């Protein structure tokens, strides 16, 4: 079976983009957790979680996204996400978290 979640990291000058493809649940939440905690991301000024290729998210995955945001804030980094699939957006809206998450249309978009 294919990997349920693939994470690609890329740097765009002082911005780190964490691109997630697949499904984020209890089984693979630790993969995102360790990526966020990794040294590669510590030097970036801005962290963007790119959810555009994320097809499934549950409350356990959401918890890791929110704890990633907390870590970024503690490190003095800006944090933003891009919108995910219909399912991902549904979860964000039913939990009321979506409107409190800084969301940009594209991973390269300026934060204002």
């Amino acid at each position, binding site marked *: *079976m294919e990997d*349920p979640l693939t994470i690609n990291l890329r740097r765009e000058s002082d911005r780190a983009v964490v691109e997630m493809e697949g*499904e984020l*649940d*209890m*089984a693979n939440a630790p993969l995102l957790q360790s990526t966020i905690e990794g040294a590669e991301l510590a030097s970036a000024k801005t962290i963007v979680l790119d959810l555009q290729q994320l097809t*499934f998210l*549950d*409350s*356990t995955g*959401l*918890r890791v996204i*929110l*704890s990633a945001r907390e870590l970024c804030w503690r490190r003095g980094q800006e944090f933003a996400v891009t919108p995910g699939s*219909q*399912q991902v957006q*549904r*979860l964000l809206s*039913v*939990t*009321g*978290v979506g*409107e*409190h998450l800084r969301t940009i249309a594209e991973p390269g978009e300026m934060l204002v």
Partner: protein
Amino acid sequence: MAVGSPENVNVVLPHAGTRIRPLRVCREEEGPLEPGFRHEVILRGDGADGFVSQMAPEETSLPFDGRLRSAPPEAQAVNFDEAGLASLRRAVTVWADEHDLRRASIEELVLAVDEIATNSIRYGGGEGTLQMWRERDVLLCEVSDRGHITDPLLGRMQPSPDSLSGRGMWIVKHLCDLVQIRSSPAGSQVRMHKKLA
């Protein structure tokens, strides 16, 4: 009402509308209540006197007491654990699609089952069983595990946007047409109803 005569008093708990019979009813001024018991203040209809009831701790699980009618023999059963969570979602997707549930509703049902199954893995002994069947125009998914749900307010209060946990049952209750919970020290069943139309 005779003070100290529990047979004559019913207490309606603020949640689930469950009536229970308290072990003992007394006037507040009768002195300290026994530790380890749950206490509820009862106000009499005429507003005259306040009473305090004592309920044994094990009675606080009553909101989820009782049994549901068993799943029918034709129900499709899938066992799951953490490694099987993604396969479980596939199974629900395929099954709900066969019953022509519309796309957005399938995603909601799959998420609901995933949340309850995640709770089974985390709190219910690491594994569980999903049963799926149809009753007229309703699809039913029931997750059973060895966990014991004791919080009567589970999923009834919206977590704050910054909260890191406690969202699972809140989500499930919002995505399903009906959620039935039964739980005892022997295990739990969470039955989710999703209408086809």
